[in-house]
């Protein structure tokens, strides 16, 4: 029935040092003083909730980004890495990056010719399909925030 069972290395691949570090010490954690965009993400599977805040300049560049909320190591680390990655991007680049990350976590093939940088550390989740939604939660919120979506983003 199931795919091959994840091995011990795969478990270590999921909980890499980089992930555990970002989970323990999330970067850019907290509200932005005056966010221009924000959105909340809920994972209905576990009830985890994250809010992503963005400060966009007039030209569309992301001047600042932060997040708030509680979640598992995977979702918090993913959100923390997200904020680091998108600060300085234009909003269009961030949307492109969003797609690339989602694709790298859920696609059947790895993403080629796209430098995910530190985000590559999240790819261990591919061996744990039940946890993919944890890794994508903040990204869906980011996308909703950029698109000024009123609705709560979910991972479904």
């Amino acid at each position, binding site marked *: *029935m*199931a795919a091959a069972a994840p091995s011990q290395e795969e478990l270590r691949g999921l909980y890499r040092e980089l992930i555990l570090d970002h989970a323990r010490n999330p970067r850019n954690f907290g509200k932005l003083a005056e966010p221009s965009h924000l959105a909340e993400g*809920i994972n*209905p*599977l*576990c*009830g985890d909730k994250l809010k992503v805040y963005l400060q966009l300049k007039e030209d569309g560049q992301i001047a600042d980004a932060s997040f708030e909320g509680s979640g598992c190591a995977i979702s918090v680390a993913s959100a923390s890495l997200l904020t680091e990655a998108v600060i300085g991007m234009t909003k269009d680049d961030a949307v492109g990056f969003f797609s690339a990350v989602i694709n790298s976590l859920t696609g059947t093939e790895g993403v080629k010719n796209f430098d995910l940088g530190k985000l590559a550390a999240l790819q261990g989740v591919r061996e744990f*399909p*039940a*946890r993919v939604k944890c890794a994508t939660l903040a990204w869906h919120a980011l996308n909703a925030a950029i698109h000024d979506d009123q609705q*709560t983003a*979910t991972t*479904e």
Partner: protein
Amino acid sequence: MSEQEPRIAELHAAQPGDRRADFPALDQQINGHSLVYLDSAASSQAPTAVIDAVASYQQNDHANVHRGVHTLSHRATEAYEGARDLVKSFVNASTRSEVVFTRGTTEAINLVAQSFCRPVLKPGDRIVITHLEHHSNIVPWQQVCEQTGAELLVASIDEKGQINIAELIGMLDERVRILAIAHVSNALGSILPVRELVEKAHSLDIPVLIDGAQAVPHMPVDVLDLDCDFYAFSGHKMFGPTGIGVLYGKEARLESMPPWQGGGDMILEVSFDGTTYNELPYKFEAGTPNISGAIGLGAAVRYLQGIGMDVIARHEQEILDYMTSELNKVDGMRLIGTADEKASVQSFLLDDIHPHDLGTILDHQGVAIRTGHHCAMPVMNRFGIPGTARASLALYNNRDDIDRLVESLNAARKIFS
């Protein structure tokens, strides 16, 4: 020419009627005779593929769905949601959000009556149905009319069991909040011109629900092509398990509706200050669903797709034609339901033998038919009869079954002569 011949032979070998071996229940003796099952309109038999899918799920993969990180829960969720994808492709829905699992057709129609209609209905509003509907497509509308003061209008049927289209269309106006019609009548076999009726209703902005319980097992159904707003059907009539069925609804319709039942799985967040409902289709699936039932239904869809619904439709049409002509040869036969467009079902009366007695005598010869009002009492009233005997077909029936039916009818005549 000669190159074609083997292909024709293959086609013949692949006749659905030859696939009886797939259905273990058909292979048994009833009262000393091999079973002839002509009651699929009430409930169909399941192929081994379905029975095994359910048992194997229980033996290997069962856990609750949607909220588990452990392996079994993940497997169960994948299998359950995989069944939804299969159903989506089977009826050609646009997205999986449009496929809501229910207990069956009945629950699906109740859901629409209570969640789509009740909140907006007021005195003066109307609901239109036809005279050939199954009780499940009558009573929910009677109930919601009683709750709201709306009025139920019923389009009549003619002597052949066909709806009077002009009359029905004449009932459609700006007061009508929904048109709810069968795709195929379970008592008479009449096929309704649903596509045409949807088009007409939509030209007046009237939403349409189609009760497809008797259509889905017998012919290709494409909800996108029909353009209906809702389409309801049951797993147990399409070779799946009992306790599972489907409400297809257009996404925008379902989005606009409040949830019906409340509970686990249909919420995003619960607090005593207020509750946020989950997305489609989960908003309408409160509580632990019939997981094994959905998986069985998925297996049934796969089985049907393996044969091809067009192949099944052609096969059944041939057997139905044969049945009609053979029944007509029996002395004292009165066929009820002789619409020009028919599928899978023939109701009849023989002399003045009560259908119930006929049912017993046929059963005694191994022939299973249904007798009575078939949950369509208004149809019986229309024909001024208390009930009928009904032989109904599925993909696994063949000409031999019809011959056995006719033989046993002649035997019944002898007892009552």
